């Protein structure tokens, strides 16, 4: 299962003024794994993602993707190499219809390379991608302007934007937050299927129940440092994780 390591993070740290957001975090993700990252609010999960994907430059430490040192590289370069991410605060192109949102990643050099020469109409590919993530084609949802779509759809649009890139590593930053139970229930099989086909997935989540069911391994963060790393069961039972979420008993 884990024969190759696709992502290696070594001792990355980031300080914002007086706040140490990420403190010497190291972990790795194997090819084809589904890795979960959990931690209470403010534990540095999103900053960690920003450090890995190039949106923020680490103060120290290194990040390796497919063996290449990508520390400090620009985000579009990293995306080009095969890593895609969603944003916790969705960033759609509000003025455009949903399917036109996907034209932009489909226009990237990476997609041109992968699909080769004439890859057919981008519009058609976009509609198909949206159908994959659950936009009902018959009721013309893919044609609706993004600003008119409810939050759950926008989250799935973020996912579709990543899928358009045909990446090897997918990082989902709180994809399920703001989605209804049924939307989550319909999105999980999509992620599982992609993972089964070989796509490595890293999921940052607050909804632990769903995450623990699908994740192969889980990492927990608190106050910027890693406090647990193991299978879902091990992490669930870890004292440190429990203390992080629930607090410890008061003294005396």
């Amino acid at each position: 299962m884990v024969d190759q390591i696709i992502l290696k993070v070594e001792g990355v740290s980031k300080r914002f003024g007086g706040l140490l957001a990420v403190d010497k975090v190291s972990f790795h993700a194997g090819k084809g794994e589904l890795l979960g990252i959990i931690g209470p609010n403010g534990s540095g999960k999103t900053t960690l993602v920003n450090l890995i994907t190039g949106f923020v430059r680490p103060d120290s430490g290194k990040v390796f993707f497919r063996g290449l040192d990508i520390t400090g590289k620009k985000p579009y370069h990293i995306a080009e190499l095969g890593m895609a991410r969603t944003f916790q605060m969705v960033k759609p192109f509000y003025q455009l219809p949903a399917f036109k949102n996907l034209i932009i990643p489909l226009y990237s050099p990476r997609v041109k390379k992968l699909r080769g020469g004439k890859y057919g109409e981008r519009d058609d590919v976009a509609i198909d991608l949206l159908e994959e993530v659950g936009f009902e084609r018959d009721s013309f949802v893919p044609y609706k302007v993004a600003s008119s779509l409810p939050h759950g759809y926008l989250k799935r649009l973020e996912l579709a934007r990543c899928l358009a890139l045909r990446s090897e590593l997918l990082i989902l930053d709180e994809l399920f937050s703001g989605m209804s139970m049924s939307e989550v229930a319909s999105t999980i099989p999509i992620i599982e299927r992609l993972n089964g086909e070989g796509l490595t997935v890293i999921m940052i989540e607050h909804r632990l129940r769903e995450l623990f069911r699908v994740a192969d391994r889980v990492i927990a963060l608190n106050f910027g440092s890693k406090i647990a790393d193991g299978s879902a069961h091990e992490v669930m039972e870890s004292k440190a994780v429990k203390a992080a979420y629930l607090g410890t008993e008061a003294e005396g």
Partner: protein
Amino acid sequence: MISSILIYGLVNSVVLALIAIGFSLTFGISGVANFAYGALYLLSGYLTWMLLKYAGLPLVLAVPIAIAIVGLLGFVIYWIILLRVRGIVLSEVIATFALGVGMLEFFRWKGFVTYEFTLPYFKKGMLLIGGVPVDYQRLFIIGIGLALVLFLYFFTHHTRIGWSFRGIAQNQRTAISLGIEPDWTAALSLAFGSAMAAVAAISILPLGIISINMGYDVLLIAVAVGIVGGLESVPGILVASLILGYCQFITSMYLSAEWMMVVYLAAIVLVLAIKPSGLFGKFKELEERV
């Protein structure tokens, strides 16, 4: 010889700093690039002149009144024009730019260009410093420059409005959630910047005659010093004005006066090529926005 270069170079630097601080302050606090800065500078000069000539006010009264009026004008500009277009970079930029150009060309059309437009020296006479004759006005400029820096430091570190300025400058969202109103702060920052333009104008204009092209030059200076030093940092402005001030002065001594402005071009091109955010610029293009 050296001492006269040192002293006059210093005066030049303080002049640049005085001019640049107002623009930088507004931009650093609220992100508004006040392209009407040059026009406001000139307006302060004309206003003072008119107060002296037509209202017959003594200098001691005319000066604070002019500063207050221009400051108020900056405040009003924000509320009437900028408020509606806040956040849309395109419109903000065009609005202040149009205002500035409109005002300056209006002055030109009205004919405010003859040499009777001068402001009086505060005190005539000069002093010998290290064998170099320096007139009181220039000393006064240095004094004002120092006073301004001290005032700014005290203000931003020890008063509530000053704190809210720094808060908004660092992180607007957090500042809002703490009850600091961004629109008031932005309007005040504009008022402050404009008032500082007035202070600079009143101190510097007596050195020569008021001319329309000064309006454009002032904007140019403010921008150039800002770009070199880092538009959001006061120490950057000070250092940049020292560098540019001395370079400019030495250039005007050995080459002709026209080359002074070229120093700015060279400085801007150089800074852009090496460190676009400026010497002290803390530009985190992406990080702040994720």
